[in-house]
């Protein structure tokens, strides 16, 4: 029954120094994947024994069971968890199917939250609200069909759970829900069912986690190329349900471009297309009811997606611009000429420094990385030095060697027109490394009165600069108004380019000393920042989704009629609201 997982090969394909750090920690760990909370933190990001902490000497350490002796794993106080509301009939019938389930407090708490700041903060404080009453682990499509049937029969609320990396409060259980809430954990549905080399497609179960999918495909010489920042933990089903975007979408496309066929189990039955044609003119694409449905209509069980041969060669690079405006102008030009490399990102000056602070040295990668961290936290966040006008864009180019070099030259030529100077591969790599450590950093921050979060939007080209400037300024002003005593960290980067616009990420953190309710302040600031984004012509979300966090803005985003259309679909597909996580609508 128990699935064993071997993590030694985990992320060996990565060349980012930081991710290497993560690998060190997890070398040769064997564990039950069933109980993920044994290796994953239930109250923070990532693996449970991987965390940053300040030791007595004032240095930051990255701890891990097998690396250092200090281990500190907070133990969940089970009595703080509400007694589960069990639907006896449902449990009895589940038992007869042989599908594993549990009502254990730890299992339930782990699946009752995503990774929004307020969720993590509450857990760290030991505050546990409404959590699922039960967890089930289907292992294939048919299991899901059975579970959904039983749920409908017994009027049980189902909440699908994939990687648990939601940042839109999508996994929070609605407190007003009186029925028994069952978390449907898809983690056991993690097989690649077949690979079709003629059509370059692979048929995969939706519970598979990003890094496993890539690793397995790599073994056969393929990849999907879909690499969201959360790919260490997020699942294929989750990507489909939230309209995810990967950093290399310029070559491979976003999730909606990658899927060929989706199978979803709904209370009305299974929805799927009859063939795998690359494009169809058969009315509105039913995939688009599923993509972004955020678990409100059913469970995605199997997906056929495009695969590509592994690239022969890939190269990182970076360019430094005299200012952010020039950087944006360069990205716009790159997008205009449609010569964007696999990934291209532009950080503002503050983030460039952040990345720089994490710069490893050849002699001792680890110490210098930590020194860097320390420098960053001490000088940049806590004291805030005056920034220099430096900005960094760092393209990743993929493909065959000659083409890559040619492509690289083209990008650098454009950059040069905008005053950009090539700044080497190291800086480029570091730019991507930041992506993966940022969530761990947040946990370290919280130990030192720092809370922070990132959020994203998409915006037309002509408004990129305006959105960046105004949102950053709004964050600073709101923090000041809400009584935050130290200047906050308010920074942004442009992470994706499209023909008509770009995706912009904001990072924001502040020191909450002296605030009685920091999370509330945080939420107010984030709310204000989102208002500002919308007022400046940005979208509600580029790829994080709406969840419950942003659903207040849905109506103005999609218009009344749009809301009505979505509602009527929900009403038809799930009339008794079995998939009752109340996201989106």
């Amino acid at each position, binding site marked *: 029954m128990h699935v064993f997982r071997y993590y030694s090969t985990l992320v060996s394909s990565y060349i980012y120094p930081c991710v290497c750090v993560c690998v060190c920690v997890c070398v040769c760990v064997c564990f039950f994947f069933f109980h993920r909370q044994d290796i994953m933190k239930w109250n923070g990001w990532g693996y449970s024994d991987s965390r940053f902490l300040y030791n007595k000497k004032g240095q930051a350490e990255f701890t891990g069971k097998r690396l250092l002796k200090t281990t500190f794993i907070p133990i969940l106080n089970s009595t703080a968890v509400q007694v589960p509301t069990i639907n006896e009939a449902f449990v009895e019938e589940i038992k007869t199917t042989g599908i594993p389930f549990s009502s254990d407090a730890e299992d339930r708490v782990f699946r009752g939250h995503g990774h929004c700041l307020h969720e993590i903060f509450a857990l760290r404080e030991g505050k546990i609200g409404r959590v699922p009453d039960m967890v089930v682990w289907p292992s294939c499509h048919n299991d899901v069909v059975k579970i959904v049937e039983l749920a409908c029969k017994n009027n049980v609320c189902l909440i699908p759970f994939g990687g648990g990396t939601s940042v839109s409060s999508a996994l929070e259980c609605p407190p007003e829900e009186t029925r028994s809430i069952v978390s449907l954990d898809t983690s056991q549905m993690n097989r690649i069912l077949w690979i079709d080399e003629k059509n370059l497609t692979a048929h995969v179960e939706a519970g598979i986690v990003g890094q496993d999918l890539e690793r397995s495909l790599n073994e056969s010489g393929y990849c999907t190329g879909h690499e969201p920042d959360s790919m260490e933990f997020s699942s294929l089903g989750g990507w489909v349900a939230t309209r995810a975007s990967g950093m290399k979408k310029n070559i491979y496309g976003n999730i909606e471009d990658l899927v060929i066929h989706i199978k979803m189990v709904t209370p009305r039955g299974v929805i799927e297309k009859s063939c795998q044609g690359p494009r169809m003119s058969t009315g509105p694409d039913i995939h688009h009811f599923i993509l972004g449905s955020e678990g409100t209509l059913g469970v995605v069980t199997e997906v056929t997606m495009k695969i590509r041969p592994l690239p022969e060669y890939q190269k990182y690079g970076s360019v430094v611009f005299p200012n952010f405006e020039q950087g944006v102008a360069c990205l716009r030009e790159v997008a205009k000429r449609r010569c964007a490399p696999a990934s291209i990102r532009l950080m503002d000056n503050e983030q460039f420094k952040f990345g720089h602070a994490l710069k490893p040295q050849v002699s001792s990668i680890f110490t210098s990385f930590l020194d860097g961290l320390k420098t960053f936290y001490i000088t940049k966040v806590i004291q805030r030095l005056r920034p220099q006008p430096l900005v960094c864009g760092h393209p990743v180019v993929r493909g065959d060697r000659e083409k890559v070099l040619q492509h690289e030259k083209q990008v650098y030529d454009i950059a040069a027109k905008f005053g950009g100077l090539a700044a080497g591969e190291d800086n480029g790599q570091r730019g991507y490394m930041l992506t993966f450590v940022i969530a761990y950093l947040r946990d370290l921050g919280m130990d030192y009165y720092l809370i922070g979060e990132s959020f994203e939007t998409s915006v037309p080209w002509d408004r990129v600069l*305006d959105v960046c400037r105004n949102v950053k*300024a709004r964050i600073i002003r709101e923090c000041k108004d809400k009584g935050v005593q130290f200047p906050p960290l308010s920074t942004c980067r442009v992470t994706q380019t499209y023909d008509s616009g770009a995706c912009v990420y904001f990072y924001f953190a502040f020191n909450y000393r002296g605030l009685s309710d920091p999370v509330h302040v945080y939420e107010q600031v984030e709310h204000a920042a989102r208002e500002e984004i919308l*007022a400046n012509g940005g979208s509600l979300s580029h790829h994080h989704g709406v969840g419950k966090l942003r659903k207040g803005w849905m109506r103005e985003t999609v218009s009344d009629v749009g809301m009505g259309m979505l509602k009527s679909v929900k009403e038809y597909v799930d009339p008794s609201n079995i998939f009752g996580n109340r996201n989106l609508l």
Partner: protein
Amino acid sequence: MENKAAYSHRDPMLKKRDDFEDILEERRNSSDLRYALRCYTPVLYKNLIPCDASALKTMVLQSDQVHYVISQVSKETGRTAEDLQEEASGIVEEMAHRLQLSTVRFFAFALSKVFKTLFKSICVNEDGIQRLQQAIHEHPVVLLPSHRSYMDFLLMSLILYTYDLALPVIAAGMDFMGMKVVGEMLRMSGAFFLRRSFGGDKLYWAVFSEYVKTILKNGLAPVEFFLEGTRSRTSKSLTPKLGLLNIAMDPFLKGEVFDISLVPVSISYERILEETLYAREMLGVPKPKESTSGLFKARKILSEDYGSIHVYFGQPVSVRSLAEGRVNRCQFSLTPRHIPKRASEDVQTFVNEAAYSLVRAQEENMVLKPWVLLASILLQSEDLDRGIPLAELTEQALWLKDLCRQYGGFLHWPDQMTPSEVVSSSLTLHHGLVRVSEGKVHLALNKEAQAGPVTPEEQVLSRAVPVISCASYRNQALHVFVRPALLATAVHTAATNNKQEVYNTFSFLRNLFANEFILCPNATVQDFEEACFLLEKTGVVQLNEQEIIVTHRGHRTMGFLSRMLLPFIQGYQVVCAFLCEEASDVLTEKEFVPAVRTFLIKKLLAGTLRYPEVLSSDLQKNALAALLRLGAVRKVKRAEQTSLKVNKVTVNSLEDTLGGKLPTPRAAAARL
């Protein structure tokens, strides 16, 4: 309704205001030359993108908006794009400022000399200067001074130069450009010139709005313009003009800057340089064309004493916080921002209300001198020829001083002097308007007596000159009293204690006088409550759920307040009477003022009119505007001319209502 709470129970007495510092004092004690040549290093906008005047012109001409409009106009009119491009660069050349520090230094030197002889002091609130400095650093700034004199913008630049603040670029009327040398000098001291009217000239509008927006967006300099659009000849604030304010708010509404600070500036003159000039203009002597030689002729004013000037830099108003919850900025995200679009209704209402609140902010910080109170009292005297005994005037002035302060007026009454000293020094300063003989104070009505044969009509006009000048000083205090005065008049006219009926009359009067005084649109209830609050606080009335009862000791205040508005009421009444009795079907808009004037002179000579003040063309024009707004008069375009079509029934009933012969029509939305 949101502002309601903010207004209703704020005691105007508790208004905090800054202290003043006299900038002329230092000029009297140190070298003007050294002052003019000193090191000038102002604080600039933090995100400033520096660019010189010619680069600015290029930016404007190459902007998306100008390009778009050129192609539009080209399609509409068939003119070539090159042709239009040339026209556009002609417009920019005609308009653009050429701010030069050397010119400003010259003005600083010359104006210091002139101001020292003209004025006792120029007082500036230094805290306001500090706030302004910070605002300039943080956000693009728009300076909004009140406009009472030609001097206003030179004075502003001089003050900013004195305090080492960024020099503004100033929107000036094209009429200044006629003054050859001076026009160019003004241009070099930061003025840019606008045509007074450019009708539907899309290209002109595009170039000009882009010019202002480019300066603001890049934070090149604070932009200064007059909300009132022109100098107020009557010292009353004028209904704000929205064009430039619309343009100035646009970069914020479209997200091109994080915020814009609007800084209302109140400039109050103890004695206005142009006082007689204005009065004559009101009476139909046309205003002399601005010319350089005219300016030199005006130099005889140098020998006169014009008292002091107070300049109060108000609290910077953030456009962002004004717009919070009022304007949905998403509306701008569906069309490219460079395509000119008519402002939506919510934006129009927002800009209009913002403009009113800014003018009110200017009014609030206008410094009132004792003379303002004296003028108000003198104009109310039973017989203008006989005047008031000095002692009585002093007593009344002291009483009014307290009332004015209680109503929140920013009164500068020198408390260290005895009341009679204060009164006599005020009378001395305004010796041209007022005489003291045999212990009585009266207006200098016979000053204008000319040699040679004088027709009775001319005599009436010349007697009106000092009255109208005097009224302009009283007008300085009108904003303090206007709401309580409207209420007092309403109580009188309604002749009942019933609160609802008084409110109806109040609402009627307020609506009628909306062109006359600064009364924010859609704020009738707030204004009513504010007036009730003030009158109740000062013990003039007692209020309960249904009634407003005038107290025994309140009659004096009530009388004073309603007498204050009487000239206006009589003026509107008599304009109505004229339209009913005299107006022919072919009365054109142009003929209106002269025709009313002839009618009024006849009435004044016959002794049926009490207030010579009604001869003011300003009042007549406002009355006509109100009647047009209320639909009692319509404009009919006929060939070249616009004639006025009078609805005699409506006008007649308005006249009767004003005279108290008819009850006021029920107010549409009385929510009390």
